[in-house]
Structure formats: structure tokens, C-alpha cells
């Protein structure tokens, strides 16, 4: 093969450009995992066998975080709620699921993914994964309300304040901020309570100890123990988001 000086320079240039694109690839498609870092990675195991009829966890969560109660399903705000098995795990349903599983409620909340799609798409970093413990957080003061994160989240975990939420809050908890209309919100794994050394409100409220919370990076933690001893599943693990919420079925 004959190659001219000009052709050689062109090829070298193209090659160098390719190398130059490598960091771009890392930014756009890199694995932002910090599972091996020294930090914590908070996680939850939902023991669906123990989950009963009550709504104690939901009430505790929504009261703690001033989540408005909006009756209109289309505009509702929810951080923690119940779904049936077939809706929680749509790709794992089949025609002959046992009756108990069919009836059993599954608690839905933000998965605090290790590789969160919402964080990847947010144009202002108003939603971000906290380096120290992997919690996917929201900055309500930075969110522009474009709802790109809601399109990005494959778990339907995010709610948008279509209305001014304040009139819909029965009793305002003065220790946690309320939101304004036009921003997105979701479960924050009770980051404000963790900071004070308490467990998340839902975990504390559950009368059956169906919610187990702890640090995935600590092999001796409660969650790791439960995960070692039980068969657990995640929602849509095939999407590569690496959720931090596990379910015992």
C-alpha cells in the first residue's frame, strides 16, 4: 500500500481525534459506579412477605417530607407507595403467579441507582448522586422543571409539582422544606435523618420490620446480612442502573 505524506498526516490526525474522543465517551457513557469506593452506599431491602395492610411507612414518609396529598391521580406527588407484583416487576409476571404474590403489596420508592439515568440526563445537576453515600438527591432550588429526569427514570419514581403543593399539605413539618410549583421531587432516603444518625422514617414506622436499611459497602451491615441469607430481586436490573433497593419475594 502506497501512502503519501499528506495521506499519512490525515490518517494520523483522524486517529488522534479518535483518542481525543475517549474522554467524551467516558463522560457520556461511563460507569459512574462508586460501589468499590471507601464511602457508604445506602441501600434498602423490602421484605414483601412481612408487608401487611397498613400504610404506616407511607404516612410517616409523606408527613416527614411535607409531601402534598393531591387527589388527582395525574398530578399526584408520591415518594413511597404500593404497587402490585405485576406492575412492580412487569417483565417477571406470568399467567400463573401464586395468589399470595398477586395480592401482596410491594413498596415503590426511588431506587437510588448506582448508575442513575436521571442524573445523567439532568441539564443542571439539580439531581445528583452524592459521592459520600450514593444517595440520589434533588436540589429544589436549582431544578428548572424540564422533567427530563422523569423521562429518564425507568422506575416512575419521580413526581412533578404541577400545582403549588403547599395548600395540599395538611400539617407542615417545619424541620423539612416544602417545595414550590414547577420542580421535580422524589424519595431522598431520608438524607436529613441519616445526617442525624436516625434511620429513614419509613423504616422506623414499619410495625413488621419489613424495611431493612443499611450500608451495602459494609459486609457486616444488616442489609448485607439479609442479602446473604435471602433470594432477592431488583426492579428492571437488565437496564444496568444498579438499583439500591432489593425485594424479598
Amino acid at each position, binding site marked *: 500500500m502506497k501512502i503519501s505524506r499528506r495521506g499519512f498526516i490525515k490518517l494520523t490526525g483522524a486517529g488522534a481525534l479518535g483518542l481525543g474522543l475517549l474522554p467524551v465517551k467516558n463522560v457520556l457513557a461511563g460507569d459512574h459506579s462508586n460501589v468499590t469506593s471507601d464511602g457508604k452506599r445506602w441501600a434498602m431491602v423490602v421484605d414483601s412477605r412481612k408487608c401487611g395492610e397498613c400504610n404506616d411507612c407511607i404516612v410517616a414518609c409523606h408527613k416527614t417530607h411535607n409531601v402534598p396529598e393531591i387527589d388527582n391521580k395525574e398530578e399526584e406527588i408520591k415518594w413511597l407507595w404500593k404497587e402490585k407484583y405485576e406492575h412492580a416487576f412487569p417483565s417477571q409476571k406470568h399467567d400463573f403467579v401464586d395468589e399470595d404474590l398477586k395480592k401482596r403489596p410491594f413498596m415503590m420508592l426511588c431506587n437510588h441507582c448506582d448508575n442513575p439515568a436521571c442524573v445523567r440526563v439532568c441539564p443542571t445537576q439539580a439531581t445528583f448522586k452524592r459521592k459520600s453515600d450514593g444517595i440520589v438527591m434533588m436540589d429544589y432550588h436549582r431544578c428548572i422543571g424540564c422533567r427530563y429526569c422523569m423521562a429518564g427514570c425507568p422506575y416512575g419514581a419521580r413526581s412533578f409539582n404541577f400545582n*403549588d403543593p403547599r395548600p395540599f399539605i395538611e400539617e407542615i413539618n417545619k424541620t423539612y422544606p416544602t417545595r414550590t410549583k414547577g420542580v421535580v421531587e422524589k424519595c431522598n432516603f431520608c438524607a436529613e435523618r441519616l445526617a442525624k444518625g436516625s434511620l429513614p422514617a419509613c423504616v422506623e414506622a414499619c410495625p413488621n420490620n419489613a424495611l431493612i436499611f443499611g450500608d451495602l459497602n459494609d459486609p457486616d451491615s444488616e442489609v448485607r446480612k439479609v442479602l446473604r441469607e435471602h433470594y432477592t430481586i431488583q426492579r428492571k436490573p437488565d437496564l444496568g442502573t444498579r438499583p439500591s433497593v432489593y425485594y424479598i419475594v
Partner: protein
Amino acid sequence: MLEKAFSGSKRYWSWVIFLLVLIGIGFGSYLYQLNKGLAVTGMSRDVSWGLYIGQFTFFVGVAASAVMVVLPYYLHNVKEFGRITVFGEFLAIAAVTMCLLFIIVDLGKPMRLFNVLIYATPHSIMFWDMIVLNGYLLLNILIGWNVLEAERNAVAPPKWVKKLVYVSIPWAVSIHTVTAFLISGLPGRHYWLTSIMAARFLASAFAAGPALLIILSLIVKKFTKFNPGETAIKKLALIVTYATIISIFFVILEFFTAFYSNIPSHMHSLEYLFAGLEGHSNMVPFMWMFAVLAVIAMVLLINPGTRNKENTLLIACIAVFVSMMLEKGLGLIIGGFIPNAFEKVTEYAPTLPELLITLGVWAIGAFILTILYKVAVSVKEEVRA
């Protein structure tokens, strides 16, 4: 040159005032939305984007009107397009402005818009979309205005303008690609998660943009003393023909993959759009209207007899424009959200304020277009006089 926009016939002024009234209605509706929140729209927790974002993606496509005349003219020396390049560019200016407005009216917190710049985030496709759209707007303003001014002064356009023209051609490809990337890289949105999305955006853009340009050229021809030229329109019609065929072909490809593989999550959105799902069928009439109009357009365009006749070409172009708007400006975005993450169906229908705001943005687009076309036509009439 702008002074040309300040003198015109009675018909011109009535049209301008009509548009201003529509803009006023749209603006009033927007103030209402700003006050009450996006609750006044038909959007919901499940269908969190609707008509606004749909129209945004569609009008990114319309902006392709520019490149489809600029590319043949500057790269292939298709002289006939020389008369109408500025019309393509001015249409792109109006279309991109509409895109930006549709994004702004969709924001929950529009006053924080500049957070996108202050906290620039390169891993968000929206950041890149902002760059390419604003860049394309600027390029077309600079190129269109300077080329027209040079034409008026009977001199060659400055050299840097030609350099910008060459930049604008790949840049046009980027606006469709990046806008497609906005939705085609999201896990769990099966209807959007298709690598052909950017190609679909390009094809439908190259159909809808030039189709509108033909419609506008025919209007200019009818109402002014300037004739954009029959050969230019014929050549554009050929571009629209190929682009429409490719565009429809791409839609058929989506059907094949979904239904031959028989994977439920890949079929659901298409089923919802074209047949209804779990008893929900709001979108079905619109999607069939798209299909019927697309067939009508193709029949009229492929047949040289009807393609080369002005009346039938006009019908074909309207059919292309409306069908692409239904498919891309409505079905594509809504289909991505139905069924939702729990495989439940929540339907969407725009509300009156939402429609009025959309109408207002349309009127702003038409207003910008009217002013720019008035200037361009006046200059061209003056030069030819």
C-alpha cells in the same frame, strides 16, 4: 433592510395585526399557566411531556428547510436554488425560535432557564441541544441577512459568510441528531430506545422542512411580484418525495422489529398509538390520519404528473407537513410515555390553555417569518426592478 417590513399593503398589515392578536392570546394563556402551574396542561405524572415537547421536536425538523436548499446550491452548484436559499434560511430562523419557545413554555421554572448555562452539564443531552439549536439560529441569522444584503447591494457576499455556510451544513445535521439523542438514549422508554431515531429525525425533517418551504414559495409567488422559480420548486419537490418515502420506510422498520420479535414492551407503544391498549385509544384516530395522509402524499409525489402540477403538489406538501407533524409532533413523544413504567396506561390530551399557548408560539413563528419574508421579497423585487 428592516425598514422594508414597515411598509406594506393593507393585506400585509391585517395579517400582521391578526398574528399579533394570536400572540396576545397565547401570551395571556401563558401568564395563566405561569400563575397556576403546569396543572393547567394535560400533562401528568405518567405522561410528563406532551404537545410542547412534541412541537419542539417537530419544528427542529422544519428548520431543515435551510440545509436542503443550501447544500445543493453551495456544494453541488444547483443554481436554481440561489433564488430561494434565503427563504430556506429565514424559515429555519422562525422554526428554531419556535423550538426554543416551546422548551421555555414547557419549563416548570422558566425563570431558572439560565441554570442550563450557569451549571453547564455536558453529560446531559439537553445541554448539547441548547448549543446546537442556538448555534443554528445564529448561523442562519448571520448567513441569511448578509447574503440578502449583498444581493441588495449587488456585490458578492463577504468571504466569511461562505465559510459559515459550510459550517451550517453539518450543523444542520447535528440539530436533528442531538434532538433525537435527547430521547433515544433513555433506559426503559422502549418506543424511543431505537438507534434509528436520529435517522428518522433526519428523514422526516428533510420531508417536512422543504414541504413547508414549497408551500411558502407558492404563497410568495401568488401574493408578491417575486417568483421563486419553477425549477427550484420542482427540485425541492423531488427532495420532499425521496425524504417522505425514506421517512415512511423508517416507520415501517420500527413495526417490523417490534412485531416480528414479538417482545411485548417493544410492541406496546405502537399498539397503543395505532390500535389502542387496554381500552385506551385517544391517539388512534390521529395516527391513522397520519398514515392516510402519508399515503396520499406519496401517491401524489411519486406520480410525476401530480408532482409537477402546482395544485396537486400543494396538496401533497400539506399532506406531508400535517402527517409528519402528527407522527413526530404528537405520537412520537406521547407514545414514549404510554404505557408507563408500571405498564399501566394513563392517557394524554392537551387542554385549552395548552392549545392556545401552542397557537401563540405558532403565531410568533409566523410573525417572524412574515417580517423576514417581507424584507427578503421586497429586496428581491427591488433588485429585479
